[in-house]
């Protein structure tokens, strides 16, 4: 797009846990924002606007959390914009900020993500409330059921097996051992995965994600300003897309197979076009995909054009997406090992920025220059994709 290129100056995140009992919700946000500003070597007075990304607030139990947390993210006297695209919210936040920067509206924008999933006892009861009350809530649809239905089609049509899902779980849990912010830090085996508790066939406990409390923030600005700072990641391409509401309306023809989310493909195609990427598998160095379930990561390999249609399992069978593979996916451990839902997309974005800055610590992919970060929300309905680069255009 025309206008100034956007860049990421810094990233702050909290240690993800089931419950951060030591801080109230605004205090949790303050922790992430303070860290992001320090990491970006930026004063709050330099922030021209704030994009607040949190959803769904049924988890916090306080409607309009942007109001509650405003002081804690330094919003007093500044333009504040809230974005809300379900689980993709944390991916939509930095997209909105980058577009505002490239449009010349604001020079420096703070993006803040928040989720406290531990405030209520039953996450799936919360998720039931995001479904249509006329036809779907009575059937008790929720996220686990919805993703199990996706898996049923992957198994029927695209060769997915329990072995493939177990490999993904072990890969991501192993990666998380090198990420000090990850919620789950434990060594697991494929046997552990296959023997873990069944939730909704074929999904088991170790195919899914934890419920995490957490907040994350990034500071974004123009590439020109970023060049004056010690480190930055540059926004090369962005995309986002949404699909029809009803799952049953996404099952009706060849173009739309619920098993391979087409809206993620639409979002990625747009981001690759902007970034000038023609062969994502070869050109990208690392991918931070928002996949809270093992089967979804494999579906996204196809949506993101890392594997041909229906051949996502090949990246598992060849080990290509492991840390030592040619296209590591979620070196941070990803959302299977920490999932502060509405903030998770921002964590993927921040982790991708750290990778191309060479600042990802023990889970750094050697020599990463081009990274992709994604987010998904609303049972495969909202998607984002962002390509970040080590160098400005």
């Amino acid at each position, binding site marked *: 797009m025309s206008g100034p290129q956007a860049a990421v100056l810094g990233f702050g995140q909290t240690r993800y846990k089931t419950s951060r009992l030591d801080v109230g919700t605004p205090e949790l946000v303050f922790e992430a924002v303070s860290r992001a500003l320090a990491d970006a070597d930026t004063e709050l007075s330099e922030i021209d606007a704030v994009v607040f990304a949190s959803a769904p607030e049924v988890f916090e139990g306080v409607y309009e959390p942007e109001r509650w947390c405003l002081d804690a993210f330094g919003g007093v006297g500044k333009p504040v914009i809230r974005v809300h695209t379900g689980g993709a919210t944390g991916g939509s936040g930095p997209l909105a900020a980058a577009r505002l920067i490239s449009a010349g509206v604001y020079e420096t924008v703070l993006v803040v993500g928040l989720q406290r999933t531990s405030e209520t006892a039953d996450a*799936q*009861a919360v998720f039931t409330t995001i479904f249509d009350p006329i036809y779907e809530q*009575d*059937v008790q649809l929720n996220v686990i059921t919805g993703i199990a239905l996706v898996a049923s089609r992957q198994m029927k049509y695209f060769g997915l097996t329990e072995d493939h899902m177990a490999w993904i779980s072990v890969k991501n849990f192993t990666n998380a051992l090198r990420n000090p912010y990850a919620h789950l830090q434990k060594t697991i085996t494929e046997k552990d995965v296959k023997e873990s*508790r069944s*939730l909704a066939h*074929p999904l088991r406990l170790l195919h899914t994600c934890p419920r995490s409390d957490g907040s994350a923030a990034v500071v974004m600005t123009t590439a020109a300003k970023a060049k004056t700072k010690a480190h930055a990641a540059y926004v090369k391409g962005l995309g986002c897309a949404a699909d029809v509401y009803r799952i*049953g*309306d996404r099952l009706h023809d060849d173009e739309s197979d619920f098993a391979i989310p087409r809206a993620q493909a639409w979002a990625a195609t747009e981001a690759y076009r902007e970034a000038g990427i023609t062969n994502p598998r070869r050109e990208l160095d690392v991918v931070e995909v928002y996949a809270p379930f093992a089967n979804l990561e494999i579906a996204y390999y196809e949506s993101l054009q890392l594997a041909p249609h229906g051949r996502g399992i090949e990246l598992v069978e060849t080990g290509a997406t492991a840390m030592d593979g040619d296209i590591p996916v979620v070196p941070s451990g990803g959302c299977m090992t920490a999932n502060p839902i509405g903030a998770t997309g921002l964590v993927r974005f921040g982790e991708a920025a750290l990778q191309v800055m060479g600042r990802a610590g023990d889970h750094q992919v050697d020599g990463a220059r081009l990274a992709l970060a994604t987010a998904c929300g609303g049972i495969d309905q909202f998607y984002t994709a962002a390509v970040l680069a080590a160098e400005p255009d």
Partner: protein
Amino acid sequence: MTHPTTVPARLPGEWRIPYQYTIGTFASAFFDALREQRILGCRCGQCGRVAVPPKSFCEFCFIPVEELVEVGKEGVIEAVTVVTAPFAGSPPVPYAVAYVRPDGATSAICNYLQGVDLDLEDGLNEALRIEARVKMVFRDDPEGRVTDFWFEPLSPAQ
């Protein structure tokens, strides 16, 4: 000098907000038909797609849809799962949920799938496979909710 307590507390709270969801004439017609043991969809006058359950517009053509049509009381499973871990408000586990495309429809509708052995010891029951045919079964005492019907295997496969 006083420092914060090291034993943080939590305060109990609850959202309890009753609603009356407005469903419109198309959904109302769907539930009326359910009482008569019929399944209604809608046909787009332009693209011909038949969506179940019906709604008063076609998102593909982005035009109003006027025609309600009856679809088959049998169909094929498009996606299916057996839920084995209970959550607040869930029916007793295990239970099966499926998206089924009724004969004559171009979309699928979600509901419980009953009349099948749900023991997962030997994997998913054959009657629960995608593309298996099922029939709609209707409650004798309809309540005007989507649970007035459910799916069962066309030929009991126990």
